[in-house]
């Protein structure tokens, strides 16, 4: 599991941005739960990775924030800015290329021809 987490590490920002693109606005805890749900517990985003990533993307202008009072506490929602949407498209293309190349390496030319 730990080795898998290392593989996911480089794609954390892309994962966050993709989720926000699909869901509009999300808060931190919701993002961690959504990832856990989609990957059936295989991927676990720790708070130590999530919040620095969110705050950095916010500082870079890819994310906007909105605050609301929910269940007696204040909740900070993140959503993509215009530049965030463009960046998401670009990063998803990169990730798709990466997956395609890794697929080619893993399956190999012999298996591909079958």
């Amino acid at each position, binding site marked *: 599991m730990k080795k898998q987490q290392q593989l996911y590490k480089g794609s954390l920002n892309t994962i966050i941005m993709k989720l926000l693109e699909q869901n509009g606005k999300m808060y931190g805890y919701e993002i961690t739960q959504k990832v856990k749900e989609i990957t059936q517990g295989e991927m676990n985003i720790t708070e130590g990775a999530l*919040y620095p990533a969110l705050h950095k993307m916010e*500082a870079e202008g890819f994310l906007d924030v909105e605050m609301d009072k929910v269940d007696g506490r204040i909740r*900070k929602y993140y959503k993509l800015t215009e530049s965030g949407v463009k960046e998401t498209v670009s990063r998803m293309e990169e990730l798709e290329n990466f997956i395609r190349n890794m697929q080619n390496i893993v399956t190999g030319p012999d298996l591909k021809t079958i």
Partner: protein
Amino acid sequence: MKQTLTTEQVQFIENALIEKCDFKDFNDVRLEIVDHLASEIEEDMNNNNSDFKTAFIKILNKWNPLILPKTVSFYSNVPYMVCKLWKSLDSKFYYGSFVLSILLTFVFYKLIENGMSVFTLFLPIIFIGLCANVYLFYKKITTKVSTTLSVYAFKRIYKNSITFVLFIVLNIALSLDGDNYNLFPLYYGLIYFSILMVGRAFVAHKNIKIENQLLKVI
């Protein structure tokens, strides 16, 4: 029935962050973490049938590396999570100013060697730096709620402002003297602090949106 935390329990979490983890001035991040901690504690209480105190200790222990200030850190008494953001801002503004200042100082020095007036080159730099400085003081006075960005923007503002003004005065006084060839370090200081002020003013401006969001809900 799904348990949700009471107002007192949420307040307990917030007080712990303020007293144990130095989150007092970082309202935006503190409120965000309170919400996440509360959600995790609720999940633990519901899934494991635990009481609030047990769940609180378990969840907070998991979060400790991220929220406690590091014992050895460039920023003392600042939660680690905030340090991480500040470090990324530093690499942009602080170290960026350092490199840009060296480049500009070298260029200006060459221009002055070729006969360009010192005042023509430095007056715009001084003007922009002073405007940024005034803006920073204005935002410091008018900011109603402190956040991660506002504390960063106003950090050492008095010390930096005094040093900046000192560089301006020294540069003007020694330039009037005629001999500009030994003023390279002073040129660098003036340009560096001017760029630093602009960078900090930019951060203070970025903070407006976050502050407005906080004021909407606090």
